[in-house]
């Protein structure tokens, strides 16, 4: 990162190769939309390049800083598109294929995505960061901007809500 701060393009390329997949996965799991995930991932890494000088190595880990940029961009996108997203979800509910029309696996996949998308923003972020991205509770708390205790409460609420919603699919899983 020190080299990137000096404008070294090769160092930036290496940094991109090392972190792009993970950051893109986080954003995709947050947005559940391929185009949005790519747009936000692109903007995240452009900000890393353009604002590299504002990164202070002694104060925060690079991955935390990087995920915080991605997280904030996701939050901005949610706020801008809240109305649109709500409309989309409603439209999907109205026109969604029936369970018979879908394979069990596809139905389960949709249910999980819908369940996560319906979680409040911070619960979703906490769950995705810790459960699916493998970030520590402490790092996830720094990314979202809450205490570790608050983060653990967010995860617990998210898991409880999802377990209730996905109970049938968990039974399918066990069958």
């Amino acid at each position, binding site marked *: 990162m020190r080299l990137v701060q000096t404008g070294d*393009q090769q160092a*930036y*390329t290496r940094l*991109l*190769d090392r972190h*792009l997949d993970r950051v*893109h*996965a986080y954003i*995709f*799991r947050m947005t559940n939309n*391929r185009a949005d*995930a*790519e747009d936000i*991932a*692109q903007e995240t*890494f*452009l900000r890393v*390049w*353009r*604002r590299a*000088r*504002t990164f202070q190595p002694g104060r925060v880990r690079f991955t935390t800083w990087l995920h915080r940029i991605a997280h904030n961009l996701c939050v901005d996108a949610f706020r801008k598109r809240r109305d649109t997203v709500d409309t989309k979800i409603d439209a999907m509910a109205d026109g969604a294929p029936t369970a018979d029309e879908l394979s069990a696996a596809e139905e*389960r*996949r949709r249910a*999980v*995505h819908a369940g*996560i998308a319906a979680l409040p923003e911070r619960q979703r972020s906490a769950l995705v960061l*810790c*459960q*699916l991205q493998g970030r520590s509770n402490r790092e996830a708390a720094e990314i979202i901007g809450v205490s570790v205790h608050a983060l*653990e*409460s967010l*995860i*617990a609420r998210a*898991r*409880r809500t*999802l*377990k209730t919603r*996905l109970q049938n*699919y*968990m039974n399918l*899983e*066990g069958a």
Partner: protein
Amino acid sequence: MTNEEFAERLDRYGANLDDWPREGRAAGQAFAKTDPGGRQLEAARAFDALLSETLVVPEPIGLRQRILANAHSRKDPMDLVSWLVGPLWRPIALAAAPLAVGFTLGFTYPETHSLEEAVAVIAFSEIEEVNGAGSEEGL
């Protein structure tokens, strides 16, 4: 550890008991060996598996190339600001630059020219040019 406490900890820290905070980990591991604890742990693991199996991320096509192309072509207006908030010599250098230019111009301007002379040269040079052109036409 009670059933409720175990369930609460599973929700907070996940189904991998090794990731639990040290305090309470041993009690959790012991409770997981009981029938109710084992059932809860199995359900939590099924939940984790359900999430990780279904939330597959599609591979972004061409994203890396787009980012590199944009990064190397776009400039951020915040660049100057972030440059200025760096080491202290930078804002000092920026403030001193106009002074340096002024001194340089001032010292290199010929001393024989007073301000009045300079004004007169500018004011009358055009008249002389016009007069000169007129006399040339007259010839």
